[in-house]
């Protein structure tokens, strides 16, 4: 049973799914499209157009690969549905007609993750939806909320597969569910077989960021990792016992070894002994890795416990406005000139009476990522980019800020360039509010539909 990961976010390598389908034998193709930032964009798109709100790239991809997938019996699972899974599935059906496979495709759609239509009902029902980081109740920002989705698990997807779906489109679900679901379906794991479910979650966690487990963004001896221009995306070779091997197609680039897989296992986790999903709480600390041949890593030992009674929701709300202005200062004393320019800018903004919730100055090329750990900049830095960012609840002051950056070229410290991209853009801030929702307030609303297309 081979589950191929073919994308870690919307915007990942467009050809990766094609390479996964054509580069060797696979049974399932799974793709994760939904980062939090993506959800906020999709909510905005749907607000403008009720037909929109899903990953359009998925539709053109399906048009391209559906004939091959159907011919070889490769089934596809993707959360490309975003905030409009039904609309996405409809477009996939049209893509199937264009691809000449009309009537041969069975489509599955999972819905019920969208809490927005029921948000006030939930609040009225005594669910405060408190922010998991700050503890504040949602009521304080309710009128600014633009979207609310709950992370679903793998069982609804597995149900769609059980009803014969060749392609399953979902909205928000935990990333690992995309890989766990095919394993549930193929191996018939029970809902309380927690160790195996945990193994599937580990497999999904390894698989969910695409090439990040096969040599992409891998730090250990990065300069020795071959052929990243055609990096192989991950393939999970799963077994009914829960054991699995991580590998990549023969002839692809990259590297799969315990170092690259471990880097992915520790990516974006909290307590590794309690990786919570709607289906199981997985323990990553019991996992063991061993080499199983060239570019093959065997993963064993995952343990699981029953899931909690809560599901995680991600609520998007309007967080004001922001803009980032940049200028480049050259040797000598580049950093000192840039800092002096920032002081001039701040003084002018103050004199204009502009107030921001936050203003931040960094020197790109010196301290914008390592902060104070970078130490004081040397006087002989050849060049440095001044980056000034502001954020405020009102648009007008942020708009005015964007007009105060370019004037520094003729009115500030010398040896400045790099303003060719024009005035900075004002962007709306989509802020996130993580909250917990009781399982029983969500599960009765989850729907699995399958139909011919």
């Amino acid at each position, binding site marked *: 049973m081979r589950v191929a990961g073919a994308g870690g976010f919307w915007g990942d390598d467009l050809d990766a799914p094609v390479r996964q389908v054509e580069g060797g034998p696979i049974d399932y193709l799974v793709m994760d499209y939904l980062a939090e930032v993506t959800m906020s964009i999709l909510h905005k798109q749907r607000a403008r157009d009720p037909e929109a709100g899903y990953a359009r790239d998925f539709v053109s991809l399906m048009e391209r690969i559906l004939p091959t997938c159907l011919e070889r019996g490769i089934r596809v699972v993707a959360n490309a549905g975003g905030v409009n899974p039904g609309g996405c599935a409809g477009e996939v059906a049209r893509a199937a007609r264009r691809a000449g496979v009309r009537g041969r495709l069975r489509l599955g759609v999972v819905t019920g993750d969208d809490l927005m239509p029921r948000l006030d009902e939930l609040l009225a029902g005594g669910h405060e939806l408190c922010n998991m*980081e700050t503890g504040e109740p949602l009521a304080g920002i309710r009128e600014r909320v633009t979207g609310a989705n709950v992370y679903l698990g793998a069982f609804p997807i597995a149900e769609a597969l059980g009803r014969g779906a060749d392609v399953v489109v979902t909205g928000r679900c935990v990333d690992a569910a995309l890989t766990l679901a095919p394993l549930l379906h193929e191996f018939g794991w029970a809902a309380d077989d927690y160790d195996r479910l945990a193994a599937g979650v580990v497999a999904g966690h390894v698989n969910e960021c695409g090439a990040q487990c096969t040599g992409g963004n891998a*730090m250990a001896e990065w300069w020795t990792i071959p052929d990243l221009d055609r990096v192989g995306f991950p393939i999970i070779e799963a077994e009914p016992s829960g054991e699995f091997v991580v590998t990549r197609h023969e002839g692809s680039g990259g590297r799969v070894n315990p170092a690259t897989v*471990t880097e992915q296992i*520790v990516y974006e986790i909290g307590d590794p002994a309690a990786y919570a999903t709607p289906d199981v709480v997985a323990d990553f*600390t019991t996992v063991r890795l061993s080499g199983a041949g060239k570019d093959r890593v065997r993963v064993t*030992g995952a343990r699981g416990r029953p899931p909690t009674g809560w599901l995680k929701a991600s609520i998007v709300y309007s967080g004001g406005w922001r803009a*980032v202005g940049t200028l480049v200062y050259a040797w000598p004393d580049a950093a000192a000139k840039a800092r002096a320019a920032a002081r001039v800018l701040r003084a002018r903004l103050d004199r204009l009476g502009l107030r921001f919730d936050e203003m931040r100055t960094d020197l790109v090329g010196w301290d914008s990522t*390592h902060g104070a750990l970078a130490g004081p900049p040397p006087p002989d830095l050849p060049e440095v980019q001044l980056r000034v960012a502001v954020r405020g609840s009102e648009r007008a002051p942020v708009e005015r800020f964007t007009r105060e950056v370019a004037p520094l070229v003729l009115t500030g410290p010398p040896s400045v360039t790099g303003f060719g991209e024009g005035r900075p853009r004002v962007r709306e801030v989509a*802020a996130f509010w993580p909250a917990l929702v009781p399982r029983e307030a969500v599960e009765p609303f989850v729907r699995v539909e399958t139909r011919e297309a």
Partner: protein
Amino acid sequence: MAAVKLVELAHARSGDKGDVVNIGVVAYEPEHYSLLAETLTAERVQEHFGSMVKGKVVRYELPNLHALNFVLPRALGGGGTVSLMMDAQGKVFSTALLRMEVEVPDETAQRTRGRGRLPESLYLHGEETHG
């Protein structure tokens, strides 16, 4: 004993969850895991980052994978799309941690020297550095 940079003993990957950064630190050599577990305490990591991390650092251990996981709350200026930081998703916090100096036996320092860094023979020279 000798002071070495953590980058010679371990590789690391970091990412975000809201305003929280996590850094997974993985020993290059399994036998260096216990050394890392002893020296790389939550307190030392907290001190290393200073005002860059406003919440309390928590450490988790993954001995089977010879890795440690550090959770750094309130490190991303509000997190995600709100943050004005260049590294708003904490992607390279890992490297900021690898700058840390740790004390190791002289023999270990000798064996690990240069590990984690591009070999000198591969440094960029001449035209390779441009364009």
